[in-house]
């Protein structure tokens, strides 16, 4: 039986993991690899909790013209055929926030991808030292994006 993503317990850090990523409505549409640098916070803005800094691989960095992007997860993409069908269930009181950690390490094939906003920042150097922003004005949206699990940690 496959546990639902809501049942996933404490997870290990995902810093250093490589993921496969694709940008939507951007001129560069190919899937590319990126490495998770670490979580990034925005002061007094909990709506940005769960955002991560990613380092793009060489070709993608050249095509997108940035070395790093920020990814804020928003929505899971489900694979209906792989959802473990159940009978009636009570509505959870407080469904989990969409999480890159749970997606990558949860090993649930019914969640095939995770969508979110992709940002860039001109404060890259300082960001890598503090891993935090003082305000939303320090970064701007590049496009929406999709992350899938790399083959090494998928089912």
């Amino acid at each position, binding site marked *: 039986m496959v546990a639902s993503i809501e049942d996933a317990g404490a997870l290990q850090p995902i810093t250093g993991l490589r993921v496969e990523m694709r940008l*939507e409505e951007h001129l560069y549409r190919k899937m590319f690899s990126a490495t998770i640098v670490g979580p990034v916070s925005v002061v007094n803005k909990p709506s940005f909790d769960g955002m991560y800094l990613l380092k793009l691989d060489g070709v993608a960095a050249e095509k997108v013209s940035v070395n790093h992007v920020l990814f804020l997860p928003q929505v899971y*993409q*489900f694979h209906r055929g792989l959802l473990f069908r159940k009978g009636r269930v009570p509505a959870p009181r407080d469904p989990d926030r969409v999480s890159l950690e749970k997606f990558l390490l949860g090993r649930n094939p019914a969640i095939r991808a995770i969508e979110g906003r992709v940002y860039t920042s001109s404060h890259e150097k300082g960001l890598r030292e503090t891993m935090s922003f003082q305000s939303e004005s320090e970064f701007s949206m590049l496009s929406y994006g999709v992350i899938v699990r790399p083959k090494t940690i998928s089912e």
Partner: protein
Amino acid sequence: MRCKFILSDISEKIIASEEGYSIFEPIVALEIDGKNVFESLGIDGVKSAVIMHSREHFIKTTLKLIRDLPEKSESAYEYWLLGTGFGFRARRKDQTLQLFVRVDGKMGPTQRVNSPKTVHIGTVSVNEWVESIASLSKSLSDMFVD
């Protein structure tokens, strides 16, 4: 895509359950240029929208919008999030849509947002709006259609 529907508060257990199609009530937000339009009303999104039935109406309304294109230069369309006091009005002139959020307590809960009111939230092309409806519909199909 300049406008995009975002669904949150999604429970995998609910969508996998036998009655998930009928009881699925996520939080619905609409983003234009990466900004959640509901933030201007002081909320993150519309709670407990009966989204699968709303989707059926959204598709019918969008088909009418498309069919009207060659016949009328101006028209208006309502997209209500069923079970809530929130909806969208799309006012078309040629290939451009002025989008508004409508709040009406007679239609359902308004999450403490004053009503009735209509708030302009942005301007998008017909193509962008139709793509956003299609994308929302596909996301929902991926959850519920085998």
